């Protein structure tokens, strides 16, 4: 932490950047939240370490059109979201100074984060410099990322339906999942837009939450980097990552392995057409399998 902090203060002082997006301590010991630092004095509260789970890339949206550069501290998996936002032309690379921060897996008050148990590796997709204070080992994922999806796939359609109805019935529509999601970055979300017809439609039946989540999952399909933030922030502990991972697994199987936010290619499997693409009938065939 010390080196990141020191470097950030340096860059602030020499005018390279005008602000820093990082973390600060909250009320509890384990409760660190994203914060903005605009000068060396404010940087006193900057922290990095075990509880810096939050993915800061989405906050870049706010500063893209502002004067000067913004420093953002990103963990390896956070850089995928950053890259995806670059692909979608939502942020400009030259507006940000990215410090890649080494990470050996994050925690909260209950222990290791769920998203970290399926760690996608320690490579930085985008960075200006890497500061590996933590001397993070090349840790391997603790579990197969798709294990939960495979369990769901084994269920009958009715069991699966019941499972999701059960899970989603707990949703209180606090919108935390959407608000934290770096893919859910629309200037005006359809669910906040009375004219969209979607917003008014959702609340009329008990299918509301399901509708919300299904629509959201479709909107982020192909763009979701599986950063795991939605499940992390959900106060109702709904396993939203399973929904997104199902899409990822299907896309991998139908169009070849793909990780959103990796590489230079802006096209996702769902926004590119090749002659080898699966025909739409595949949905029917799989449904019958």
């Amino acid at each position: 932490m010390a080196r990141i902090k020191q470097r950030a203060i340096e860059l602030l002082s020499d005018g390279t950047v005008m602000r820093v997006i990082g973390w600060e301590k909250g009320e509890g010991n384990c409760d660190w939240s994203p914060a903005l630092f605009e000068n060396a004095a404010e940087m006193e509260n900057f922290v990095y370490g075990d509880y810096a789970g939050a993915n800061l890339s989405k906050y870049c949206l706010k500063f893209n059109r502002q004067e000067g550069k913004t420093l953002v501290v990103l963990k390896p998996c956070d850089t995928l979201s950053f890259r995806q936002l670059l692909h979608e032309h939502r942020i400009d690379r030259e507006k940000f100074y990215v410090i890649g921060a080494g990470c050996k897996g994050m925690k909260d008050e209950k222990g290791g984060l769920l998203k970290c148990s399926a760690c996608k590796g320690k490579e930085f997709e985008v960075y200006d410099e890497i500061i590996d204070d933590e001397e993070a080992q090349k840790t391997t994922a603790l579990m197969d990322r798709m294990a939960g999806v495979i369990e769901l796939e084994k269920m009958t359609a009715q069991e699966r339906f019941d499972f999701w109805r059960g899970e989603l019935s707990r949703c209180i529509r606090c919108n935390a999942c959407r608000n934290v999601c770096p893919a859910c970055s629309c200037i005006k979300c359809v669910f906040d837009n009375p004219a969209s017809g979607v917003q008014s439609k959702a609340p009329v039946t008990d299918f509301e939450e399901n509708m919300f989540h299904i629509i959201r999952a479709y909107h982020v399909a192909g763009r979701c980097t599986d950063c795991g933030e939605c499940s992390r922030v959900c106060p109702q502990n709904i396993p939203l990552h399973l929904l997104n991972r199902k899409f990822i697994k299907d896309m991998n199987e139908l169009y070849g392995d793909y990780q959103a936010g990796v590489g230079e290619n802006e096209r996702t499997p769902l926004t590119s057409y090749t002659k080898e693409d699966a025909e739409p009938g595949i949905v029917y065939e799989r449904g019958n399998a």
Partner: protein
Amino acid sequence: MQKIGVFVCWCGSNIAGTVDVEAVSEAMKSVPGVVYSANYQYMCSAAGQKLIADAIHEHHLDGIVVASCSPRMHENTFRKTAEAAGLNPYMVEIANIREQCSWIHKDKEEGTAKAIVLARTAVAKLLHNKPLQAGTSAVTKRALVIGGGIAGIQTALDVADAGYEVDIVEQRPTIGGRMAQLDKTFPTLDCSACILTPKMVEASQNEKINIISYAKVEKVDGFVGNFKATIRKKARFVDETKCTGCSLCMSKCPSKKGKDEFNMEMNNRPAIYIPFAQAIPNVAVIDPEQCLKLKTGKCGLCEKVCTAGAINYKQQDELIEREYGAIVVATGFKPIDPSPLNEYGYADNADVITSLELERLMNAAGPTKGTLLRPSDLQHPHEIVFIQCVGSRCDENTKRGKPYCSKICCMYTAKHAMLIRDKYPDTKVHVFYIDVRTPGKNFDEFYRRAVEQYGVDYIKGMVGKVAKEGDKLMVRGSDLINNQQVEIAADLVVLATAIEPDPTARSIGTMLTASMDTNDFFTEAHAKLRPVESPTAGIFLSGVAQGPKDVPETVAQASAAAAKVIGLLAKDHLVTNPCVAYSNELLCNGCSQCEKVCPYGAITYIEKEVRGPGVREVRRIAQVNPAVCQGCGACTVTCPSGAMDLKGFANKQIMAEVDAICL
């Protein structure tokens, strides 16, 4: 509140037979927004249209729903009716209660219930319709013909004759296509070259026709009337403007191991060659795989002997960009490779040949100078077996060949049999067939002549095995009429192999977004009524690219395609479809997802100051070029925020339709 009229058509008994039309028009009366509802025997008739026009005037309707056949049939008719009666033509919705209802239901009660839902759905959509104005776009008065076989040549000649420019892009070094490889042609048995080459010459001499040979179309952008094609003209290492076609270079070239494609690779040709004597353009081409100079840097003999100074080893591919109003696909066919069909032993026996190879063996410019000699030992064959339907008419599940009939094989096999019997009367000729199919003017007479006059032995049945024994080919098959197995010791076996579209057809189809069937033949806009148009506007079909056919049929279709092209190029402006996409700049993220899925490249981006309630900032915004947009709607469903919408098929309209069906 809008005033909507609903008009339910009986279509004689086509609809009224399975849909209670009276009940449908009655039910519509209670649908919110509907102020008038009627039914009539034929809405598309003059009387039916008058009924609509009168109702529009009398009830001051501001929109109409016609519950009738598919919009593909009469949407235009009713739009014109409405327009004449003072309504905006886009305030017309069609409920398809024929193709999507009466024709697919047997039970009248079910059919009626569904027709009511479909009509109600159309009303729900219409309540959100807005009047739209069609724009116009200019037409580039030039046509592109892809493929220079007889089909492409004929289309080009006819279009040029009407005074329009035509470019023929041909992938091979010469135009002519398969017909150039044929010896004689049925049913008149005139020499193929004698009737084809005058047309080739005519094309090359026509000022309006520009032949771009040894080239391929790499990219096509744009839309009907305004296509833009990128054509790659491959380096032939010979300057077309200088080469006189003297062929001196060919005789001097020391590399002689190139396979002569024109002669079905039955003999070799030099690295520098002119495919055949009457090639157009009559210009040599260097095969870079065979040329010693290009491969090793040593040789250069052709450059030394060429008096015209036409050789240029440094020539590069050339990219040509041109605009066209119409595109004709005339990519033709190739015979399938029969090697995988083991029973015929094609891969293992030199004396098992395809019919196209036989054409070359009988042709004076062929590898044997026109004397029929079998490939293995160059002896006269005395007993010849023809096998028809090789790889045609196969059970799709066995994946052993094509499911379709190749159409031309019965006739050319009769032709071959007859020509051989005529020239070599000492030769016995047998033909194994499943059916002999010879409809067509003078065709059956032609086949009967083969049997009756020339004594060709036709055996109904399939061949099970062709095996080499000594210098004979033992052909075992069944004779279904005499119900016995037969075995013939043949000197030569000729396979009437199925034909399939040129291997490049699929990529051309994708490039043009022209639809194809599962066999890669291009599909027509309507199997009966629009046989030479592709469903994609501005794309026309000519020759075997659309389906197997012989020369007379190819030429007829080629001229038909030309007529359609001329009809298009004769227009100065085209009315554009106003149902195009547009983005709401207050909602647009500038994320480029729509641009990536747009198959027509209609979407671009600008940086723009966006102003709205509480908003004033510069943003990256999607913009649709309405002249390029085809209204496919791909962008609207990709856009997460709903910024992209389609006029005439707005998200709201679609949602209203879904609601009307589900609620």
